[in-house]
């Protein structure tokens, strides 16, 4: 992590608990760079997270108010804090299992309310912390500790879900697209209403080793190749897009 970002961190807790090759460190850096460039005072910010690897991005690392809650519930906790103290800038940072599976109900209702929260979903497509079980975001056919013969359930398209539920800023980027990701986090933070940013982050330890995805670097390369921008996707046929992940801003109202 670049030294100029240390002022936003409780450096005494370093090193972070993330495995080597985990994408969450890149995401952590992107969030702090977005905050730094916007010139926000972290004392006016609250970071809420649930249970899982993604939830450890803010807690205990961020030198701000952090609320590390029960599995699946950070959006609901954040809703209470924001409603009672609207001056707080409230950001939820947690994983796909936390936000989209066990906490899916709170996500869609936060989008319906269009409450002024920024939700950053660190999506690694698997339950990493608990040992690599299948998630609601695991792509079809992928092997996990609970789908040894390959996942047979379709994954959620989280951006479409939040868009349909009424979210007013919705985007998806991978940790390989750092500059657009930082820009998107800034737009999400500046947006009034519910902003949802899905961030694809590789998990070499639990996802990669079961699926011959190679080294952490090769996983990032694959992510780069699999992601296509929204603009480019519009020029592609459905067969071509079958194994691609569309990235970009989907709702900017």
């Amino acid at each position, binding site marked *: 992590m670049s030294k100029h970002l240390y002022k936003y961190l409780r450096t005494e807790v370093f090193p972070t608990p993330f495995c080597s090759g985990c994408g969450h460190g890149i995401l952590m850096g992107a969030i702090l760079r977005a905050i730094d460039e916007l010139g926000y005072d972290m*004392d006016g910010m609250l970071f809420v997270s649930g249970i899982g690897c993604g939830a450890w991005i803010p807690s205990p690392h961020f030198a701000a*108010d952090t609320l590390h809650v029960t599995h699946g*519930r950070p959006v609901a906790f954040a809703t209470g804090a924001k409603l009672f103290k609207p001056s707080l800038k409230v950001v939820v940072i947690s994983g796909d299992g936390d936000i989209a599976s066990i906490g899916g*109900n*709170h996500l869609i209702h936060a989008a319906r309310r269009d409450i002024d929260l920024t939700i950053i979903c660190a999506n690694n497509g698997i339950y990493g912390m608990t040992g690599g079980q299948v998630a609601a975001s695991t792509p079809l056919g992928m092997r996990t500790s609970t789908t040894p013969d390959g996942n047979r359930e379709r994954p959620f398209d989280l951006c479409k879900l939040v868009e349909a539920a009424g979210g007013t800023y919705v985007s998806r980027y991978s940790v390989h697209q750092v500059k657009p990701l930082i820009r998107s986090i800034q737009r999400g933070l500046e947006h009034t209403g519910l902003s949802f940013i899905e961030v694809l982050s590789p998990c070499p330890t639990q996802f990669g080793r079961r699926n011959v995805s190679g080294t952490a670097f090769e996983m990032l390369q694959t992510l780069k190749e699999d992601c296509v921008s929204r603009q480019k996707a519009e020029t592609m046929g459905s067969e071509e897009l079958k194994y691609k992940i569309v990235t970009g801003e989907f709702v900017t109202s």
Partner: protein
Amino acid sequence: MGYRKIRGVTPPGQYFLQGDEACAEGAVAAGCRFFAGYPITPASEVMEHIVRRFKDCDGVFVQMEDEIGSIAAMIGASWAGAKPMTSTSGPGLSLMMENIGYAAMTETPLVIVDIQRAGPSTGQATRPGSGDMLQVKYGSHGDYEIIALSPWSVQEIYDMTIRAFNLAERFRVPVFVLSDEGVGHLRENVTVEQEVTVFERDKAPGQPPFHTDEPGGVPPMPCFGDGEKLLVTGSTHDPFGYRKTQVSEVHERLVSRLVGKIRNRADEIVDTDSYFLDDGPDVLLVAYGITARAALSAAKVLRDEGQKVGLLRLRTIWPFPERVVVESAQKCKEVVVPELNQGQICREIERLLDRDVISLPQTNGETMKPTKIIEFVRERAVTQP
């Protein structure tokens, strides 16, 4: 910070209110300005009334997507500086259990009103019960303590709701107003006083929010946005909130304090009421909530018949009024516990007294009639050697 007197928001005087409404009035009087809830019979009127009252005092109301969301939003609001409340009944309470443990672990003040109905499961939604007496204390996993108060009248649910907020703030703990459909839907007169005693949170900047050197003490609680860079977590944590999930001593010290801060101060919390205990009655009735009204009527009738019957009424359920129960039962021949469950509090009393305690259970979705207690005492209790 600490206890102080404030002018109430409701003009002093007499009001004819439903129990649920009086509960909401008590909350507003105590300074509650955040309510997150979900509709459920027979507790919805608390929520509906507080929505009306919040218009006059800038309270924040949100109807959440479920009860899990309600208690989560309350905890978030509590750390943002609110005195939060929700109201629910059995099924909703069951959904809240995980986050009740979270509130206990993070020492978050909040008030949960449980207007009990006849369970288990959906049971009889519109009818009274007392089936949640143990669930409020033991429902979440791990070791922790909570406080639970049990009103028997509309006046008392008003007064006890104020006290519930003060105890929640004083001890940084979830407090239950453990009422029932009988009191919740009852309509009676309530006297509202001009002045209300409230407890204001000690914020103490820079102090550890999760430790105090005082054995079993209650640490100060700053708010989000105060610049304290708070670390709040349901994981085992050190005095400043850093996760310490692999250190045995930290866990032992934390859990012991969470339990100790309530157990060691039981005398400050416990509140009971007694009738006809001065002459050393042969039969002691121990009752609470709506059932205590039937028990008092029964005691009066039985005394008119010449039987020595007394009543101990539990206004606090948790921490359990151990000392008072033991003292009151000392000279009695029989202890009878009428209640709207299969003997939940009877068992707690049995644990304390080294003797048989007679349970008078009723789980038919109706309030207990005095005649049931009268006949039971006539036939069973006094005829025993």
